[in-house]
């Protein structure tokens, strides 16, 4: 994968922004459960009341409360509140909110910052609870009895009637007061600070009711407020995701586009040797399928691979912040999950890869069956082919089944682990709530965080399936990109010069195909003169095509030199070299388009007359004009809609459009019948007087009039001369000629 890392570089800015956005999104998503817990804790349980410090308190109450405060706390509290009397000038401001102000004075809380609030809140809470407890006991004898039991020496029933308990308490000596306070505090200590605030909240709510405040409204206001915050967060989170989606789409598509371009360009620069070492089909797949795989992975990476760890880490941080002792539950769950996934994939991953290979094999068998359909039927090999296919099918099926079953196990197990985790959290959480270590809302929030952490681990593990597959594709692409073509232009290219004759000379040329055991050509030396026809003839595999393929430098010689006009062809650029050569390959290839576009492939600027002339020489005019569209007739991909002979003639015409000084015909007349062959040669001879013609053929009649015939056998020149000379001197030539004698006579 890393071999392609440089393709990400142009997009580093986008990727950084994406990571930043994902980070923001993770934060927003993680904050949501927070708000949920606040909704439950404060909104529902505490009636929308957030702290134990009431916003306003009746002065009468306040006087009772301060009884239970230490000197320092009392000072702090009184500091925080301002007294407002009904007739004070500030009264009108507050009377709307606290209707009771019309009748009695109240103390209003000044604006305080959070640390200040937190400082006096617990003390205030306890005091409020104490006052509340007594007030309740006063109202309810049962409660009074309870209190007598739990608080030593505080038997309210013993207080003489008509006396105000609070006056009594206020007058108590400090030491006794402390005792009483301590006893009361004991009762509360079991609850913990958080619970105390929670409990005090209901007292505060009662106070508000007494103040005439609409407590329901306070609550619903709070709930709606929180709701709006949640909505806002959701909106932001969604905005982030959309932005990420946009950026990642652009970056991934961009990387894919760049890769495709580079791979294509690279392959176009390949020489035949490189094409042979990969195969055409493989190159096609690498240029298309493999790039698509990378694109998919790039998108997924940017969305999931970056997001998941951020979520996971964020969740972990939140959990730690919550100061919860249940983190070990998450750790266990994650541990189990990860080991499950690890096991499954160690087992399954190699099989995943095998599936791809087996699919290829199945394809291959089927393709061959189709390609050789006639042969298969001619030799009654259908059962053989079917067996071959069946084997490939069975192999693929077996592995597919295995893979399928593995995935089937994984899903339910993962769900079970996650569900089990939430059960465990609830169970352990209950204990914690009972021990006053945690509030219910906190537990619910913890549940959410736990799920998010586990999910993020899951997503990261899923990456481990995707990445290997993409890694394979990346390697295949990198293999192509890293190839150095064997045939390169020289650093300081020379040029042929203006007067180009086209003299081709082979000097002691030997050639071996890459990876072959023996030389295909051994010590070939000859000269092809301009204005002359040099023919190469010999049995199949004797090296004829190999020789002419060396001239346009499709391969480089392994020994010796090829010179054109005295210049070694390796000294000039390939572009210039091939401009001088008109080449007709053994297998005719036409490109999709029109007849005209194919002819113009040799020379875009060719005049219509040039095209017509070339077509005439190639004996193609007849069938071109027989088509209604003429030159504009469609050619389908691979030239499927023309016959073999027509394809060859168009191929020849194309080469002739070039009006090159050197023309190579590699067995190009094979699909033509003898009559057309002869006519073509005559026309060629007429119109290409000055150029060098090299013709490779199996037919003696084609080359009977050539100025030079080279007879090849097993890579060597075994005969050289004109037809008549060779008939006398060369046995092999004589054999070939005599075997074709009947046709010769007819030509």
């Amino acid at each position, binding site marked *: 994968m890393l071999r392609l890392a440089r393709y990400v570089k142009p997009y580093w800015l986008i990727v950084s922004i994406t990571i930043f956005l994902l980070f923001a999104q993770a934060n927003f998503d993680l904050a*949501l459960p927070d708000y949920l817990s606040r909704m*439950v804790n404060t*909104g*529902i*349980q505490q009636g929308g009341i957030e702290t134990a410090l009431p916003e306003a308190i009746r002065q009468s109450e306040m006087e009772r409360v301060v009884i239970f405060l230490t000197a320092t706390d009392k000072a702090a509290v009184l500091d925080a509140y301002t007294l407002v009397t009904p007739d004070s000038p500030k009264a009108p401001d507050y009377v709307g909110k606290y209707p009771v102000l019309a009748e009695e004075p109240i103390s209003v809380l000044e604006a305080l910052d959070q640390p200040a609030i937190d400082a006096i809140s617990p003390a205030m809470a306890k005091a409020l609870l104490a006052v509340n407890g007594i007030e309740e006991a006063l109202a309810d004898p049962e409660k009074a009895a*309870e209190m007598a039991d739990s608080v030593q020496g505080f038997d309210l029933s013993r207080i003489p009637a008509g006396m105000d308990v609070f006056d009594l308490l206020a007058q108590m000596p400090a030491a006794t007061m402390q005792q009483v306070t301590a006893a009361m505090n004991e009762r509360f200590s079991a609850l913990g600070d958080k619970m105390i605030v929670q409990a005090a909240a209901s007292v505060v709510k009662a106070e508000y009711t007494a103040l005439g405040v609409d407590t329901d409204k306070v609550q619903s206001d709070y709930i709606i407020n929180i*709701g709006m915050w949640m*909505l806002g967060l959701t909106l932001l*989170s*969604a905005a982030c995701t*959309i932005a990420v*989606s946009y950026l990642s789409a652009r970056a*991934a*598509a961009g990387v*894919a*586009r760049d890769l495709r371009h580079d791979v*294509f360009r690279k392959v176009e620069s390949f*020489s035949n040797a490189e094409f042979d070492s990969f195969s*055409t089909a493989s190159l096609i797949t690498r240029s*298309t399928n493999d790039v698509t795989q990378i694109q998919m992975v790039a998108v*997924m990476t940017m*969305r999931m691979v970056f997001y998941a760890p951020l979520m996971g880490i964020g969740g972990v941080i939140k959990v730690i912040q919550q100061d919860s002792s249940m983190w070990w539950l998450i750790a266990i769950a994650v541990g189990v999950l990860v080991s499950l996934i690890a096991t499954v994939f160690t087992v399954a991953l190699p099989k995943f890869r095998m599936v*791809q290979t087996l*699919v290829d094999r199945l*394809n291959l068998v089927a393709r061959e*069956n189709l390609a*050789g359909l006639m*042969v298969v*039927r*001619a*030799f009654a*090999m259908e059962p053989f082919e079917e067996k071959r*296919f069946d084997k490939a099918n*069975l192999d693929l*099926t077996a592995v597919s*089944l295995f893979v399928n079953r593995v995935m089937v196990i994984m*899903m*339910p*197990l993962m*769900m079970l682990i*996650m*569900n089990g985790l939430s059960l465990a959290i*609830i*169970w352990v959480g209950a204990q914690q*709530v*009972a021990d006053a270590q945690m*509030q219910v809302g906190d537990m619910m929030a913890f549940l959410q965080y736990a799920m998010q952490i586990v999910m993020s681990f899951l997503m990261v593990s899923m990456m481990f399936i*995707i990445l290997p597959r993409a890694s394979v594709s990346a390697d295949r692409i990198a293999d192509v990109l890293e190839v150095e073509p064997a045939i390169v232009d020289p650093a300081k290219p020379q040029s042929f010069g203006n007067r180009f004759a086209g003299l081709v000379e082979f000097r002691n040329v030997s050639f*071996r195909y890459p990876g*072959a055991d023996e030389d295909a050509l051994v010590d070939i030396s000859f000269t092809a003169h301009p204005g002359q026809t040099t023919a190469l003839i010999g049995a199949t*595999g004797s090296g004829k095509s190999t020789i002419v393929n060396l001239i346009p430098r499709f391969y480089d010689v392994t020994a010796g030199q090829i010179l054109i006009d005295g210049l070694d062809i390796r000294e000039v650029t390939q572009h210039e070299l091939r401009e001088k*050569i008109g*080449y007709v*390959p053994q297998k005719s290839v036409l490109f*999709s388009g029109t007849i005209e576009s194919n002819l113009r492939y*040799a020379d875009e600027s060719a005049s219509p007359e040039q095209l017509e002339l070339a077509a005439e020489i190639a004996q193609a005019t007849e069938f071109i004009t027989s088509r209604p569209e003429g030159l504009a007739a469609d050619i389908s*991909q691979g030239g499927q809609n023309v*016959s073999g*002979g027509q394809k060859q003639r168009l191929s020849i015409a194309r080469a002739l459009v070039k009006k090159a000084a050197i023309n190579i015909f590699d067995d190009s007349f094979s699909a033509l019948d003898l009559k057309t062959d002869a006519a073509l040669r005559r026309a060629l001879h007429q119109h290409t007087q000055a150029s060098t013609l090299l013709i490779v053929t199996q037919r003696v009649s084609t080359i009977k009039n050539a100025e030079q015939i080279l007879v090849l056998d097993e*890579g060597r020149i075994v005969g050289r001369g004109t037809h008549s000379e060779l008939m006398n001197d060369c046995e092999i030539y004589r054999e070939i000629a005599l075997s074709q004698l009947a046709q010769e006579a007819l030509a």
Partner: protein
Amino acid sequence: MMHRPGNAPRGGFGRPGGPMQFTKGEKARDFRGTMKKLIAYAGRHRTAVIVVFIFAILSTAANIVGPKILGEATTKLFEGVMAQLAGTGGIDFDAIGQIVLIVLGLYLLSALFGYLQGWIMANVSTDITYRLRRDIAEKINRLPLTYFDKTTHGEVLSRITNDVDTVNQTLSQSLTQIITSVVTVVGILGMMFSINWMMTLVALLIVPLSMAVAGLIISQSQKFFTQQQDYLGHVNGHVEEMYGGHLVMKAFNGEASSIATFDKSNGKLYEAAWKSQFLSGMMMPIMMFVGNLGYVAVTILGGWLAVQGIVTVGDIQAFIQYVRSFTQPITQLANISNVLQQTAAAAERVFEFLAEPEEVAETTVPVKVSQPEGHVEFQDVHFGYSADKIVINDFSAVAHPGQKVAIVGPTGAGKTTMVKLLMRFYDVNSGAILVDGSDIRDYSRSDLRNLFGWSSRTRGCTTTRSWRTSAMAVRARPTRKSSPLRRPRTSTTSCTRCRAATRWSSMKRLPTSRRVRSSC
């Protein structure tokens, strides 16, 4: 908890798995008919599939009921806390413990059922896939050659790979997804209603909203997806053509124009690609946003209702979980019709192929010739590859045993066609061909073809070692049963006959890639 790792791609094979493929809207021509055929094809697995359905429903149901019951645990907890504060009591751990155990049991059952149904489904889908592929492969050998004149190899191969894959994917994954999604939606709805109808209504308001949004995004992204497929086709086509004609391209210095053409298509592909990717990527977050909207609305309403004492805190928790899990199955269902259409289209192509008229059937009483003489006669043969173009017109000829007959003529005259008729690759339109006095249609095809030794000018090699290709010819000749030639050759050094036939020496000069894989 109902968090399903729905984002995570299923580990598909050969398929680039990914979250929802909002793929091209291919439609089958006859949806119902194809589906019926598919069901009939899967006939033998009927009971298995029904069991799968039941298990899937049970599994999902257990998963749905879980949160509600779990919610009761939270409620108990909450009540316990309040009681503790008021000093009236404590948390009822017995009750909570019971609830937890029940829910654990439910989850275990759900996992078990889920596993079982997946296992069965895997078996079913793999078997169907295997059979489909096998049937197609066997069909290929029974189809008349005229079929392959009209259809490219690529199309036929696509049946075996892409189309069967699509059907397989649907069977093994999408089918159960459909069931679970439907059951989930219905179940969740039921659960939500059982908790509180008001909150449910609020939650339901999301549905039309999310469907509308989903529909909008799907249609927009489909537009770009089709574009992307088109340009991908252009790019691929260009690549195939240029790589296939590499030699010609080089010979005519066509690199520059080839790359220029490529860049144009590549650029357009880029545009379509990122747009379609972006839009389909938006689906998830937007659906989640809509889901969260519902989540918030429900939370607010729930809070208010809890204060009124109409619902409990646990109810809210459960409800929130349900709402969050509600959008995913809805999105899946929105995509389902797409998936089904695609599958139907793929299945239709496969079944169409399987229903193609086959070669004329073999006769039931084939003529047997113990000593073939080799008398061949053409009697008034008329033949054309297509109905309107008759290639052989009223042809009659006789070849006596021992004669060497040559067929000559200009290109396109019908020479190779004659041979193809003789080998019965095609049947004559009218007239007859007789071998040893019997119409060739009265022979079994393999017997008939065994009478001929045939060497073709074009293709027919396979990726086995070259010598084996020639060994095929040798093996096919009718020889005595005990002949050593009947034994399949396994050694890498070939028999002398093969050496002679394939010019073993010339092979040594070939580059290794061509030697081992003689792809023609």
